[in-house]
Structures are given as C-alpha cells and as structure tokens.
C-alpha cells in the first residue's frame, strides 16, 4: 500500500492543508478498469504531478476531480466540496486545461473571453488588464481577433491556458498543458505555475513527460494501469526505486516495470538496424 503521508485517509475534518482529497477512486469503462483504487491528497501550495504512461488513467482521474466523470467507487473532495454536487462552487475556484483544446472553433478569441468572463461574472476592468498581460506574455495578442478554428495547435492551447487563468483560481488542473507550446511559451507557463504555487495555490499537473514532472512538481504520483505505484518527491521516489541519485526516467521505468522491456526493445532495434544497413545506391 502506498501512502503519501502519515495522515489516515478516513480523516475528513475540515483540513485547510489540502485542496484535493481522493480516496479509493475506481472508474470503469465497461470491462476496462481505467482507475483502480487510487488514493492521494493534494496540498495547498504545491504542484502535484500525475505521471504515467499513455492510457494510465491520468486524464480519467483529472476529469473525476473536476466532476466531469462520476467515479464508480470512492470519494473526491475538492476544497471539502463534492465536485459533482457542488459543481458550480468548485468550478468557480478551479482553472482547467484539458488534453485537447476543444474550444469553440467558430468564435474569435475576443468573443470567447467575453463569454467566459460573463459566465464567471468577472470584473471587466480587472479582467481586461489581466487578460492583456497574459496575451502579451504568451505572444498571443495578434490572434485576439482571429477565428479560433484558424489558429495553430499551439495558439489554441495558449487560448485555453489563458482562459483557465483569468479568474484567479485556487486550484489549477492541467492535463498535458505544454502540448504544442513553443519553448518560450512553455517557459512562461512554467513561471506562471511557480507563481501560482507561491501565492498558495495548488496545481495538479498530468503529464507523461518525465522532465516536466521532475522540473516542476513538488510531489509526483506515478500511475500505471490505473493504479498508484508510487508517490512522493523525486528524492523519495528514487529511494523507493532503490536507485539513489537516479534520475526520474530510471525511477519511472523501474517502478512501472518497464526498465527490462526497454532494454529488450533497444536490443532488438539495434539488431534490426544492423541488418538493414543504409546502403548508397
């Protein structure tokens, strides 16, 4: 059994230290168990990484936290609220970046932010200023009046990220937020996440890219096949993997039992590459 600290999970007293508490989450899609008995807590003022290979169940978990999916078993509390029952209260305080930027194709960014601002009932002056500086720092100002359908993948992603930030959320839930962003914008986003953390906000960052997790996350939950395999800081994880001083890649592969298979795959690849020499005609 993997635990994240010594506090017992049955303890649901109003606990200001935690933003999200997930207990024994299970989510099935037909026969497939996408999330299997997952338990973790996200502290205030930390960047919490959900790390796992493709199909591990990261997106599914994140959607349950947002109340977009209903867990089959287990319980989630976000700010001590029930994400489905108290949906509106929760969403007021959460910013979400989804895996795919499914934002209205036939609106301009301007219309989109008017829409979001209206539904969130934001203060126009304050929001405009904030939006301006966000657009500027992501170099997205030239696209403000462009139709979203015509934006590139990265620029759509920027709009999505900005839309998740303009209301000063307490909790940011970001599912692969750096997908499609160029180096500079990725750096900007990382800085924003750090700033958010310093202000005492929490971030849940789902990713399968180890470097990002290692660089940004205070604690990392490694998930594979829906199960929590390990949870802790990079240091703690390396301890768990019996590989002190190892980098996250080794730890990750070791913990997900992929280190041997990777060796084998590489070996195979080598052989086949040798056979198929590149010959100049």
């Amino acid at each position, binding site marked *: 059994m993997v635990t994240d600290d010594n506090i017992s999970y049955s303890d649901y007293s109003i606990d200001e230290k935690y933003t999200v508490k997930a207990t024994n989450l299970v989510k099935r899609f037909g026969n497939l168990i996408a999330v299997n008995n997952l338990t973790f807590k996200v502290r205030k003022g930390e960047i919490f990484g959900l790390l796992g290979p493709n199909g591990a169940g990261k997106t599914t978990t994140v959607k349950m936290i*947002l109340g*977009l999916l*209903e867990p089959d078993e287990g319980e989630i509390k976000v700010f001590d609220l029930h994400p*489905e*029952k108290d*949906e*509106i*209260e929760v*969403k*007021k305080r*959460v*910013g*979400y*970046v*989804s895996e*795919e*930027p*499914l*934002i*209205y*194709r*036939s*609106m301009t960014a301007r*219309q*989109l*932010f*008017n*829409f*979001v*601002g*209206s*539904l*969130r*009932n*934001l*203060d*126009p002056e304050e*929001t*405009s200023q904030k*939006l*301006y500086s966000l*657009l500027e720092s992501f170099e997205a*100002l*030239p*696209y*403000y*009046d*462009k*139709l979203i*359908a*015509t*934006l*590139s993948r990265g*620029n759509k992603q920027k709009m*999505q990220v900005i*839309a*998740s930030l303009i209301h000063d959320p307490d909790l940011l839930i970001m599912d692969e937020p750096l997908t499609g962003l160029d180096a500079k914008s990725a750096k900007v986003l990382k800085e924003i996440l750090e700033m958010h953390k310093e202000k005492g906000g929490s971030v849940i960052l789902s990713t399968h890219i180890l470097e990002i997790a290692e660089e940004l996350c205070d604690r990392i939950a490694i998930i594979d096949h829906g199960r929590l395999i390990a949870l802790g800081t990079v240091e703690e994880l390396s301890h768990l993997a019996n590989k002190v001083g190892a980098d996250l890649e080794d730890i990750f592969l070791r913990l997900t039992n992929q280190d041997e298979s990777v060796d084998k795959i590489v070996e195979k690849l080598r052989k086949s590459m040798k056979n198929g020499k590149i010959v100049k005609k």
Partner: protein
Amino acid sequence: MVKLLKSKGMKMSNLLSLYKLSKSVYRESILYSQLESSGSNYTKLLERIGKNPKIISSQPKVMKFLTSFYIIFLTIIPVRAITSINSILHNNFPSHTQIPQQWIVLIGSILNSSFLLLELFVLIIFSIMMTWGLFSPQIYSWPQTLPLRKKDIEKLSLLTFIRGINVQLLFMILVLPLGIAIGIFINITLYSPKTTFLLIFVSLIISIITSFFNLGVVVFISKKMSILMEEKEDNSKRSSIIKAIITLLYLISSMTLMYFIQIAIDKIPNFFTKVLLSSEQSLLFNNILSFIPFPFSGGYLITILATNHSLYFSPITILGSIIGLFLFTILTYILLKYSVSILLKTSRTKSSFKKEKEKENLQETSVQVNVTSPLKAFIKRDLSIISRDLQLIMVFVMPIIIPIFAIITDIEDNVLLNEYGLTASFISIIFYVALTTYMIITGITNIESGGETITSSIPIKTRDQIKSKLPYFFSTILLAYLIWNLFFINSELFPKMITFSLIYLPAIPLAGISGFFFKIFLFGKLKYKYVVEEIKTEHRLAKHFVSFLFVLIVLLLYIGLSFLGYWALGIGEIVYSILLIFVFNYMFPK
C-alpha cells in the same frame, strides 16, 4: 518494339498502382469535405468516424447510387420522345394532320437535348458536394511524402477525381444508347437493323462526348466551389454566409430541377399537340438551334436519325447538327484539357489553409472584456456560432424555404388540398412542423458540443443555457407554420382555417420546448443535474426517434383536442404551459 511494349506495360502497371493509391487520397478528400462542412458537429463527427471508419465511404456511395439512379430515371425522356414522334407519325394520333412537321422536329429535338442538359444538371447537383473536397491541396500532403515523382502525383490527382465519379460516368455514357435501344425496341417494326445499329452507334458517340463535357464542367464548378468553401481567415462570417447562399441556391435549384423533370415526363405527348409556332417559325428555330453545340446539336442528330426519314428535315438543320456536334467535340476537348490542367495543378498548390500570417498585424489590439449576464452571453455565443456554421444556418432557414417552394409549385393545381382534403393536409403540415422542430432541437444541442473544454470548466447553470435556447422555438418554426397556411388560400374554408391555425399556434412552441426537455431527459441526465449536451449516448438512434415521436404525438394530441372544440384546445394549451413551467423549474433549478 518489345522494349516499347515493356515500357508501355510498365506505364500501365504504374497507372494501375497509382489508381489503387488514389483510393486513399479519395477517402482523405471525402473526410476533408465532410469535416469542412460539419461545422459544430466537427468533434462529434471525428468521434463517430473513430468508432466506425466505414461511414466515411458510405456517404459517397449513397451519392453515387443516387446520381446513377437519377440518370437512369432520365432515360424515360428520350424513350418517350421517340415513341411519341412515332405514334404521331404513324397515324395513331388523330390530329396528326394539324401538326406541322417542323413543329414535331422542334419538340422532338428539344426533348432529346433536354435529356443531355438534365444529365449534366443531375451530375452537378449530386456530385459537387462530394467532389469539391478533391481540390484541397491538403489531401495531397500525405502522398507528397511518398517516394513519388511529381508527375505521378499530378496523375494521382486526376485519377482521384475520376475515382470520385467513376460509376456516374459509366452510367452517363451507357444510358443514352440504352434509352435509344429501348425506344427502338418499343417501335421495333419501324426500324431496320441498319438504322438501329446506326442510331445506337451515333447515340453512343454523342453520349461519350457529352459525358466528357459534363466531366469537364463538374471539374470546373468543383474548383470554384472549393475556392468558396475554403475557410478564409479574415472574413469568415462573410464566407459562411456565402456558403449558406450557395447551398440554398443549390437546394432550390435541385428541387426545381426534380419538379421540372416530373412535369416534363408527365406531359411529353402534350408538347407535340399544343402547336404554338407556325411551320415557318419552327423551321427557323430548328435551323438556328441545331447549330448550338450543347445540348442541341446532339439532340437534333438523334431526332433526325430516330424519325427514320419519315419527316422532312431542312438541309440546314442537318448540316447545323453535324457542324454543331463537331464544334462540341472541339469544345469538349478544350474544356477537358483545361480541367485536367486544373486537376494537375491541385497537387502542386501549396496549402494555404491554416497558414497564419503571423505577426502581421502588430498594431495595438485593444483588450476589453465585456461582461454581460450569463443569459445574454449564451445568446451572443450561439448567434456567433450559428452565423459561421453552414449546417446550422441551413437548419434555421430550410424550414421556411420548403413551404415557400412547395406553395409556389402547388399553387396552380392545389394537389395537396384536392387530393387529401383539409384535415389530412393539416396533419401532414403538422408532421412537417414536428420534423423541423426536432431538427432545430438537435441543432441547438449541437451548438453546445463544440467547446467542451470551456463549458466543462466554467460554472454553468443549465437553467441559463436552456433559457437562451427558448427564442428559437418561437421564430423559424412558427413562421414556417404560418406560411404553410397559404396552401389553403384557394379554399373557401380559408378563413376558418386561419382561425384554427392561430388558436393552434401556441401548441407548436409548447410541443417543441417539451420535446427539447424530453431529449435532455433522455440524453443528459447526470447524477445531480441535467445537461444540454448528449452525454448518455447509448441507444442514440432510438432515443432520437423517441424524442421526435414525443414532439409529434404532443402535436397530434392537440389536433385530437380540437375535435372537442376550440375551447378544449385553448384550455389544453394553458394547462400544458403551466405543466411545462413546473417541469422547467424541477429539471433546471435556480
């Protein structure tokens, strides 16, 4: 010699493998045009294709079938033309003596020509929607990564287009000789084997030339369409309105076409007997028309041969039809060459799509967020989505176009009213109202499904969302319903009808809104609330069908109530509204 043959063989196999390759390019193009015209259905369509990739090819298959069906259906025109001419000529027709020969020539030729022309229209109407996607350079981006020579890629674009209309082309070539053969067969005693052979042979030649001409025209129009349909970055609202207008014109013209074909086929023998022009006038027309390469020269030549020397043809007409056909061949050749060059160019054009002109407008963008009430925000968003979404525009415009069109075409004969009577006519109108109401219901649901990321992360009260959709139930459908009433304008019961329609009027939005709620009940029931989006998608079709039935049954129940008297209808409407407000508050609490 052997070498030459070999290289030719090589070329053939190369062409064959290219044709095989064109299959995937073709699929790609269909997918592209489907996605491009899907508007707010974009993600849904992708999801559906993911589940069942076969649906990509099923649509063009249906189109191919439909086009072929209509082309075969058109065969009736030359068959009837030939049999009518023969029956008039061989005294089966009593008033034969009063019909001038030149008039028969004129009508017979116009009929045969109209066949050729209609063939082209049918091809355009049923093929263009499928073929304009072939002109997007995007679809060639993948083959361009393959080790193919530039020439081959160019050939590939040509082959892909041919693949797109292969079946139609085949039918188009075969149908005219087939029609002529049937026409001869019906009058078998009148034709010698030699004439039979000549007639079929000539019609085959004409048919081949015309088919290639049609091919060229379709390429040309498809290209123009693809330019119009391609999403323009800056004036997208304008371009989607252009798209809507094109599609509308397209629909109207196709309906008109079908209408005229029907009339023409019904009334062919009458054309011969209703003599409108004198013999000299007809002769003049014959001489002039026969020189016009398309569609008349071919039509005249067929008529000349089909009358089998029993009619007098002026030498000018004969000469005209031959010269015209010759010109037509040249014209076809030029057009075909031109269209091939268009096709070849397609693969070479750099994809302009989605190429952002980055950092182009560096001038200060003013960022000012306008905050309104959620209700207003929803309405604004919906309008901006609808105005840029061809399918949605159609959903809101079509319900009005159809009754207008139906009334225009029916106003003279009043077929609907005379054949079915008042009640049955009204019930069929109600059926139509139910259908369009449900179309609008699905349309306004689709608006929601384009921005999952945004809507799933912001605090949305379904109540506001629903409220923003209500105006749609009071606009298009009511207008369409009122227009339908003009159907009864010729009837002496019209004043009564109008009174009834007005009393019945409130029932229509009531049925629509309750159907909308019912659909949400089936599709969007979550644990703690109802949502507009289609979440519970199992048994999707059955659920759609049931919700449609719901609307229809509510509407029919009101008709039932009206049999008790107008007062019952009125009371029913009031009770139902109260019930609906109750349901609204229950399903979508504050």
